[in-house]
């Protein structure tokens, strides 16, 4: 065969969809209509939904069990079917704020600061887990050259944190879609929401 001269531009960038807990909570446990629509939309947009390990745990998932997936009635089926991917635990602890060189870890501390500034809530109630989507976005960019990231969240402040922090690391191909929680059911199954 004499292929191999495919134009680079034809190699479409992969759009990774990062999804926050509130989206899956609003869709509810399968089987249900919204879940089916989301699965179909993911397939036709030719994408996958990526979640940090902490979000998997928030959805009931057990990351310490021998069997995987295990424990989440919201996403285990989708994980087994291959359209939801749980990322390995992200590095970084709230306590360590000095001499951090890993971009993923640094981005989480940046996000923590931005969330505190955006929300005007002291860092004492600022949840470290709120930084996970930022860390995962930076990690996906670090690991993949041809990628775009689309983040879906029901928290306005987190949408802002992603958009402020991720470009600090040189990655501008990031969009965030904010959903008022009661709009998720009607919106999330739309293929256009999952495509760049």
């Amino acid at each position, binding site marked *: 065969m004499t292929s191999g001269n495919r134009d680079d531009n034809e190699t479409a960038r992969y759009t990774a969809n990062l999804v926050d807990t509130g989206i899956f*909570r609003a869709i509810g446990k399968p089987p249900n209509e919204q879940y089916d629509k989301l699965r179909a939309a993911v397939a036709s947009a030719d994408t996958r939904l990526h979640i940090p390990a902490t979000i998997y745990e928030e959805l009931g998932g057990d990351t310490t069990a021998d069997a995987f997936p295990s424990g989440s009635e919201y996403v285990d089926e989708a994980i087994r079917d291959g359209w939801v991917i749980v990322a390995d635990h992200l590095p970084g602890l709230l306590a360590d704020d000095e001499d951090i060189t890993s971009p993923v870890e640094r981005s989480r501390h940046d996000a923590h600061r931005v969330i505190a500034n*955006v929300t*005007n809530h002291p860092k004492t109630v600022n949840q470290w887990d709120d930084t996970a989507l930022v860390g995962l976005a930076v990690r996906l960019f670090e690991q993949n050259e041809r990628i775009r990231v689309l983040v879906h969240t*029901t928290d306005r402040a987190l949408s802002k944190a992603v958009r402020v922090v991720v470009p*600090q690391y040189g990655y501008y191909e990031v969009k*965030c879609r904010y959903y008022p929680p009661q709009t998720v059911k009607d919106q999330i199954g739309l293929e256009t929401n999952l495509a760049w």
Partner: protein
Amino acid sequence: MGTDQSNSQTPKEITATGAGRISELRPVIDMLEKPQMAALYTVLRDHVVTVPELQAEVDVTKSTVYDYVAALQRAGLVSEVETDGTATKYTAHEFVVTLEVDGMVVEVTPDVVEVLSYQETNLEIQGFLEQYGLATLAAFIDLAHQHAAGDVTTRMIADLLDISRGSAYDMLEHVGRILDIGGEPSTAHAADIDENERDELLER
């Protein structure tokens, strides 16, 4: 329907504001326990209507509608509107009543009344009320408005109120739908953030 057992905590201290109108507190307390009365107040808050029109919206007898309207009128929460000689129409007034219940301060607002009108029909609201109580529900409703404005995250709400994150996510959906807060979904590109704003938000 119509049982009055829920939220039967006894308020100890009461303060009220309602443009200086509130003249009797019992009907305010009654609304916390009677979902149909809460629903009736909510209809009058959004519309100027007659008693038959009210009855069409609220699932109680005509005489109960009259009783509720009279009680809310006595309290200063509802007034008659000038009409052109046809059936009398009514409207509701905004108010804030602060109660102290079991050492916790509860701000009773029209939004709290509206959410409580679903306490027997919405399982999520009912379960939350049973598990966490009225004071936490009222505080949650206030935080739901802050959340819609982006001033607090869901995980922070769970932390602030000591409720489960799952409850916080689920309740934001229900309260958001009932009160219609949060606007429409929107998509924003990272490159559109102003550099000055970016620097400010990254400051310690």
